[in-house]
């Protein structure tokens, strides 16, 4: 493999790279002012408290500086005045694909969503720009009291539940982008699973950006009541536009005592998307929250899923795979906040840097002095495909007191020329050899994904590597 042979070129994102002409009834225009907020609140016919919540959030957003003192300067290239903050056709999500407008239906059919729903999902929500176009959950779940709707409907139909937990796990002022989301959020899922109900098949949401210069700000809130279990999966794509697009979600999870939430993400953003997402869960006594996260694509992703272990024996886990191709920066990691005795957290992160791609791991583990018997395990491994590829690791593990156990391992490895030669000698092309190495590197983590997603993941990695060698 020669040095110049592995500079990434055009990546085949053909599956997601298409768009339909825009036909929006509601368009908040470009730029962000208090009028934008009122426009969104008016269109959604929102209660007064939520309108006030948004206006407060806008102030916080405007006052907070960009986090460039620790994060990349590339954030400065986001022009908030050129972004469109709300686009919709005023559609209500339908329960039947037949009733979804043709272009939206075709979009999701091309992405294979209705097919996946038939095969293995318990419920689906499909969001097109700012609002959901389709939302359905199996009748049997509905009878057990499971709620799975978009956040707009959740706010309207279940205000007491929604308001109780909304913004409690991730306060508005957590960071600049959680404030932005709090000001202009639209779409995303609202899920409530009643005590003892175990949802055996996954619920899935798909977030699709269709319009250029658009910002997608979905807001997801999942509450798993006592002893319940749920797995939620999200997928996202956008077409390849000339200008950059912003995706800034906030996801809050609440696992009540003995509940279990698994949140699976497979994102495949096109290379001009700024993906700045805040995700955090709160685990009460003996509850478990697992984030299983795969980041492929985007220009810059900043995402550090977290778990606050608030109850005794709560467990938190982050399993993450990030692939940074040429011109991309995956800045990902995990936050584990131990706030009760005998809580356990586990972080396993694997990143791959291709060409001039850059992968950054940032971890925060916090175990205070007054607690007893907490455990954390952190492993982060980086694989570099070329000499120019970059990786950096910033683990911050704060453990006070002497009654805890923590373990941290990090490794950086490079795909060696001899390893590639060995595989080529067996008849694999350079791209196939790279793909196999990368798949081997993440193999143990891919097994953590539901089978249907692990197949998709392998396909995405193959596509990425195919485009990355000349």
């Amino acid at each position: 493999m020669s040095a110049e042979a592995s500079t990434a070129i055009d990546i085949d994102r053909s599956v997601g790279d298409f768009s339909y002409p825009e036909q929006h009834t509601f368009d908040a225009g470009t730029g962000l002012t208090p009028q934008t907020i009122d426009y969104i609140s008016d269109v959604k016919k929102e209660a007064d408290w939520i309108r006030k919540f948004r206006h407060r959030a806008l102030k916080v957003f405007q006052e907070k500086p960009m986090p460039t003192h620790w994060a990349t300067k590339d954030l400065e290239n986001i022009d908030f005045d050129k972004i469109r903050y709300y686009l919709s056709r005023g559609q209500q999500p339908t329960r039947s694909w037949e009733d979804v407008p043709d272009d939206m239906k075709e979009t999701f059919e091309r992405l294979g969503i209705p097919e996946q729903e038939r095969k293995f999902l318990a419920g689906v929500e499909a969001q097109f720009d700012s609002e959901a176009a389709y939302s359905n959950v199996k009748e049997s779940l509905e009878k057990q009291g499971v709620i799975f709707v978009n956040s707009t409907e959740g706010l309207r139909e279940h205000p007491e539940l929604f308001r109780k937990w909304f913004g409690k796990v991730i306060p508005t002022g957590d960071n600049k982008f959680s404030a932005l989301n709090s000001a202009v959020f639209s779409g995303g899922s609202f899920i409530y699973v009643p005590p003892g109900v175990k949802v055996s098949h996954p619920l899935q949401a798909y977030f699709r950006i269709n319009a250029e210069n658009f910002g997608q700000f979905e807001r997801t809130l999942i509450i798993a009541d006592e002893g319940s279990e749920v797995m939620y999966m999200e997928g996202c794509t956008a077409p390849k536009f000339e200008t950059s697009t912003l995706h800034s979600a906030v996801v809050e999870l609440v696992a009540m005592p003995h509940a279990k939430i698994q949140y699976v993400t497979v994102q495949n953003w096109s290379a001009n998307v700024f993906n700045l997402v805040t995700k955090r869960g709160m685990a009460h006594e003996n509850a478990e929250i697992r984030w299983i996260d795969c980041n492929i694509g985007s220009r810059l992703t900043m995402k550090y899923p977290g778990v606050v272990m608030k109850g005794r024996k709560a467990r938190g886990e982050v399993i993450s795979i990030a692939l940074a191709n040429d011109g991309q920066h995956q800045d990902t990691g995990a936050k584990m906040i131990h706030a009760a005795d005998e809580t356990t957290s586990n972080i396993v992160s694997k990143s791959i840097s291709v060409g001039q791609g850059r992968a950054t791991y940032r971890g925060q583990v916090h175990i205070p002095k007054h607690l007893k018997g907490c455990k954390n395990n952190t492993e982060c491994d980086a694989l570099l495909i070329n000499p120019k590829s970059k990786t950096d690791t910033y683990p911050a593990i704060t453990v006070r007191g002497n009654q805890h156990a923590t373990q941290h391992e990090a490794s950086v490895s490079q795909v060696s020329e001899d390893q590639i030669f060995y595989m080529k000698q067996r008849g694999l092309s350079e791209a196939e050899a790279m793909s196999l190495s990368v798949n081997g590197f993440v193999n143990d983590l891919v097994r953590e994904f539901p089978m249907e997603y692990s197949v998709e993941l392998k396909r995405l990695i193959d596509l990425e590597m195919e485009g990355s060698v000349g």
Partner: protein
Amino acid sequence: MSIDIRDLHARIDDQEIIKGLNLTLPKGEVHAIMGPNGSGKSTLAKVLSGHEDYEVTNGSVSMDGEDLLELEADERSRAGLFLAFQYPHEIPGVSNANFIRAALQARLPEGEELDAVGFYKELYAAMDALEMDRKFTGRAVNEGFSGGEKKRNEILQMAMLKPVYAILDETDSGLDIDALRIVSKGVNAMRSQDRGILVITHYQRLLDYIVPDHVHVMKDGKIIRSGDKNLALELEERGYDWLSEESAA
């Protein structure tokens, strides 16, 4: 039909290692190359299989009439050339079964899928012949393998890929006597009218098990003597210096 090497010169960085080598390996024959350390035997194996660190500065190599040097390493493999590595590489996280499957899949026309049932049947039969445990299919390629296991794995891959020409680079190194017997049995089972095999070795011992049709002695980047299997025995008895003195004279 043969591999024909004519006046081959090759170097790594600025150092010439192969200095005008001539050799013909016809189908249906087993040839052995012997020689002291540093004579260029392993370099020859790498040059023939297309390692990019080596530059061919002169000469030609053809395989059944096709210009081998024009092909990339993976194209040479798919055209039927196999190299059993002296130091096989590890591929973490990739199972042996998947690796061999990927290599076979790479030989199929676009859109055609390897038949999984047939593949495993063949793989198990080949593993049985090499006295390999079934668990081996799930282990990562060469990771944590003993020297003997790695060499056995090379022969397994050869059995599965069925090359037209195979080069075995020091396959006997690191093998105890039992492993040597099993590996040799595997190689002998692959001797055929339709296959040429080039065995590179430092010691005569291997040639007791894989009896060659021809033996060549390599020194300082050239073949300095060729003969039948008795040449190997003579070398064993008299050492390489005897030949060097003779060729210097």
